[in-house]
């Protein structure tokens, strides 16, 4: 044969190594032992962490969160488990919601716009309602509060995962879809063999970004005051809240340290292995030069255990296959739209919307006046100003730095993970430091509380700009160098157009995150000292503490409207422009 394989590796491939590997009887390798210990440790931790959930609520009062650093590993574990519980919930939600939206044209009409709105709703404002709801669902049980916390994280993770999955399902390569159809793959098999694998890389990436964002909310959701009741779940967030209440600076340091360790472990043991694993599902026909690397993944892959872990993940797939209806050999007949049904559906949707508007109006009308609405709008404008100024400032700082890093591959390789780590680090853990500084120097609260909003979200700008700058083709840079394109001209004609789509993605994420963060950033405390800046965030936070549900609802609604409007009028057009004119392809 005239063709040669592209890699030498393939020539060593034996038939079915999977079988031979399972049958071989040899001493377990070092990798086996490492992997076994890691897995056993994780299992033991999960069991211990979950023990606390099934207790009655009074247990929280009997053994309250203490400031002793020795308890911190336990708290960190509980916090981490909450994160993963929420991730699992988000995954289940994504697989059902997005699949439904992609498969049914009717469901799509409601589900996708709903997702778009949900993405923009400030999650932290919701805590008031969800805590009350879940505590009523499991009265007197810790489980109820745990559910509320998990739900808060879920709401920060699920939407963009669902969006990414939906997008993937809509962009299945035509030829692969035809093969599946030609062979008569049943819907279940099609899902398992084509749709799920195809969507995996972007789903994994979005899940990881969601996880990063989620740490912020788990910290905020563990210690929550609603009206007269304060609930504290054992975790890093509540430990931090206690440290702030007691003005214990050392304890704040411990919390920051613990958070750092947790995020580092999560990054090394979960994030990177999973990204490295998901690379195999990338739909490209050539092996890419820089595959994501992970030592943990390499360890696991070299072990026999890997196969058994996979069995566990295959189980749900096997269950699904039980419902397999077998061969489906039929061309889809282009469904002729049924006018009457279509009309009925439209009427039903419209009626639902009208009913919802009336219900909201009725609820708000009883307690609030038009003046309240105008007040909230006014506050929203103040917060809007903050968000825009901060994004501008962060851009001025991070775009040049990001470009500098991105153009130096050696640096980019080292610093990109750090930027991602910083984005995952919950900035609210650092808030007390700022408060102390403001109190110490008697700084203007209105100005100096503002940076807290962008403390955690500015990194999205940085790592997107790094990614954009490293994607600038070498020939373009060489051409610019040869023609002596320098200074402002170089920025205007070479760099800014090249990084623009990436920058907009980062800025959009940062802006959305900042709105959300304003709820915890515009009102912070240190012991009895309470610092409050004017804005919609502090408006919602104060209403939450007062248990003033209508004003919380109003605040959330106004904030959602502002976020949606900002996205529609600023970020989306910018993004579309960048995609159209500046995408290097």
């Amino acid at each position, binding site marked *: 044969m005239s*063709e040669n394989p592209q890699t030498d590796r393939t020539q060593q491939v034996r038939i079915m190594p999977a079988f031979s590997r399972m049958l071989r009887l040899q001493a377990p390798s070092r990798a086996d032992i490492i992997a076994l210990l890691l897995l056993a440790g994780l299992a033991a931790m999960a069991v211990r962490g979950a023990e606390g959930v099934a207790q009655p609520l009074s247990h929280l009062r009997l053994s309250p969160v203490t400031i002793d650093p020795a308890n911190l590993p336990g708290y960190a574990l509980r916090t981490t488990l909450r994160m993963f519980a929420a991730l699992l919930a988000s995954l289940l939600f994504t697989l059902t919601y997005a699949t439904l939206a992609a498969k049914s044209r009717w469901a799509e009409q409601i589900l996708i716009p709903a997702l778009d709105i949900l993405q923009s709703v400030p999650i932290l404002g919701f805590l008031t309602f969800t805590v009350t709801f879940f505590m009523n669902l499991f009265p007197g049980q810790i489980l109820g509060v745990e559910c509320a916390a998990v739900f808060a994280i879920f709401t920060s993770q699920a939407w963009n995962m669902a969006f990414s999955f939906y997008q993937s399902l809509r962009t299945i390569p035509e*030829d692969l879809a035809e093969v599946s159809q*030609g*062979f*008569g793959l049943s819907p279940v*098999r099609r899902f398992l063999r084509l749709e799920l*694998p195809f969507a995996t890389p972007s789903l994994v990436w979005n899940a990881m970004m969601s996880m990063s964002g989620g740490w912020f909310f788990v910290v905020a959701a563990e210690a929550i005051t609603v009206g007269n009741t304060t609930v504290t779940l054992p975790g890093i967030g509540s430990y931090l809240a206690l440290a702030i209440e007691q003005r214990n600076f050392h304890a704040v340091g411990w919390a920051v340290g613990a958070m750092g360790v947790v995020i580092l472990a999560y990054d090394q043991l979960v994030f990177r292995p999973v990204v490295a694993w998901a690379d*195999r599902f990338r739909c490209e*026909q050539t092996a890419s030069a820089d595959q994501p690397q992970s030592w943990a993944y390499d360890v696991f892959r070299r072990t026999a255990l890997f196969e058994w872990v996979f069995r566990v993940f295959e189980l749900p797939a096997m269950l699904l296959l039980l419902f397999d209806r077998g061969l489906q050999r039929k061309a889809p*007949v282009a469904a002729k739209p049924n006018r009457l049904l279509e009309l009925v559906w439209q009427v039903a949707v419209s009626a639902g919307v009208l009913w919802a508007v009336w219900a909201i109006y009725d609820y708000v009308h009883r307690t609030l006046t038009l003046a309240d609405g105008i007040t909230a709008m006014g506050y929203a404008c103040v917060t809007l100003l903050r968000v825009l100024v901060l994004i501008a400032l962060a851009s001025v700082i991070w775009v040049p730095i990001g470009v500098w890093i991105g153009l130096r591959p050696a640096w980019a390789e080292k610093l990109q993970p750090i930027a991602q780590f910083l984005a995952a680090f919950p900035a609210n853990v650092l808030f007390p430091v700022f408060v102390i500084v403001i109190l110490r120097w008697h700084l203007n609260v209105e100005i100096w509380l503002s940076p807290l909003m962008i403390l955690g979200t500015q990194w999205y700008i940085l790592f997107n700009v790094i990614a954009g700058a490293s994607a600038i083709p070498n020939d373009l840079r060489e051409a610019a160098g040869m023609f002596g394109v320098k200074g402002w001209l170089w920025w205007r004609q070479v760099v800014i157009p090249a990084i623009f789509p990436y920058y907009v993605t980062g800025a959009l994420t940062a802006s959305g995150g900042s709105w959300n963060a304003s709820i915890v950033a515009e009102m912070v405390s240190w012991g009895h000292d309470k610092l409050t800046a004017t804005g919609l965030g502090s408006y919602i936070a104060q209403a939450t503490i007062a248990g003033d549900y209508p004003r919380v609802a109003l605040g959330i609604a106004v904030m959602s409207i502002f976020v949606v409007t900002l996205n529609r009028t600023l970020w989306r057009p910018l993004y579309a422009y960048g995609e159209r004119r500046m995408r290097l392809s």
Partner: protein
Amino acid sequence: MATQNAALIRTPLLEVEHLRHFYGRSTKGTPVIDDVNMTLCENEIVGLLGRSGSGKSTLLRSIAGLITPDEGQVRFHRDAASKAPDIAMVFQTFALFPWLTVLENVELGLEARKVPREVSRERAIAAIDLIGLDGFENAYPKELSGGMRQRVGLARAIVVDPTLLLLDEPFSALDVLTAETLRTDLLDLWFEGRMPIKAMLIVTHNIEEAVLMCDRILVFSANPGRVAAEIKVDLPQPRDRLDPAFRALVDEIYARMTARPIATQPARDGIFPGMGIAMTLPRVSTNSLAGLIEEVDGTPFNGEASLSDLAETADLEVDELLPIAESLQLLRFAELRGADFVLTPAGRQYAGADVDARKAQFAQALLGHVPLAGHIRRILDERANKEAPARRFRDELEDHMSEEYADETLRTVTLWGRYAEIFAYDEDSDRFSLEDPQ
């Protein structure tokens, strides 16, 4: 030659009757394929030849059951005993699942049929061996070269024991040498009867490939897609490209493909479908036009070349070459005489001219012979601000042709008009104008 065919009993396997299909959901406008009829018999390889957009792939997908045609039907002849006919397809893009190994890819079709695991593994390995891929069972597609990937595609298709094998431009994504090897290997398997396949239907735009492989070739015309000609290939296998009879047949097919649509379509102006401004224009760059003129003007052609020679020298596929040649004919720079391409005096003058003279000559030809270009120019001249939105012309074109064709036609006329400097176009505002972009 006729005796050879008479010896075989021609059992029809498949009949396509009055097939008609439209773009998208609409059943208005020009159909992609219009009133296509064909019969496929056992033991034959049939080629579908035509330029892009002639609906070959639509026909193939209708037969494969991947799309349901708007009108007409596809009927399979089969013995009462046998079950539903099995059809498998090989794709131009290979269409392998990147996350499955070679073995798993080949097993996919069997898995869907719920063949027991051991049986399916055995059959898959046999198919992989047959196609010459043994040793690569556990490789992932991205580790393989293009030719080996298409072998996986072939193995995956034949493992399900199809009665009919459909091939959609199976070798066009491969380099010339690899394509040749694979083609020969496939023909060997076919003639040695080592595959259970009863017939093969192959879509191609490579005339030589069609003549090399097929017993019968159906030539398609474009917009709407129709069977323009049926050509029997009675040359004995294995066929030799240098055989004069082979060359003659290739030339004959070139001539058929460039022939003006005959009596079925009266009142047509020129080779492109549609009249006046409704004429669809293929996407051909002015560089290709100039390039072909220069190629034919120089040695060894000296103003006259056969299309098959030209395709070889310029390394162009027929569906790349024909649009260029026909555009030049439309502009009266050249003439197509049967399978020959002849430059007109205007064409030879163009070849010898400098840049500015070329542009002037091109502008004159464009305004004189492409009604749409003249139309746009006239509208712009009439307007006070010498501007007009492109939307206006696109809408006008869509009254006569599908959205895709309208888009392509407008793009082409924009490209040619810009080169000839008879009007300007601004992408941001999507407007034509007369202003000089200086």
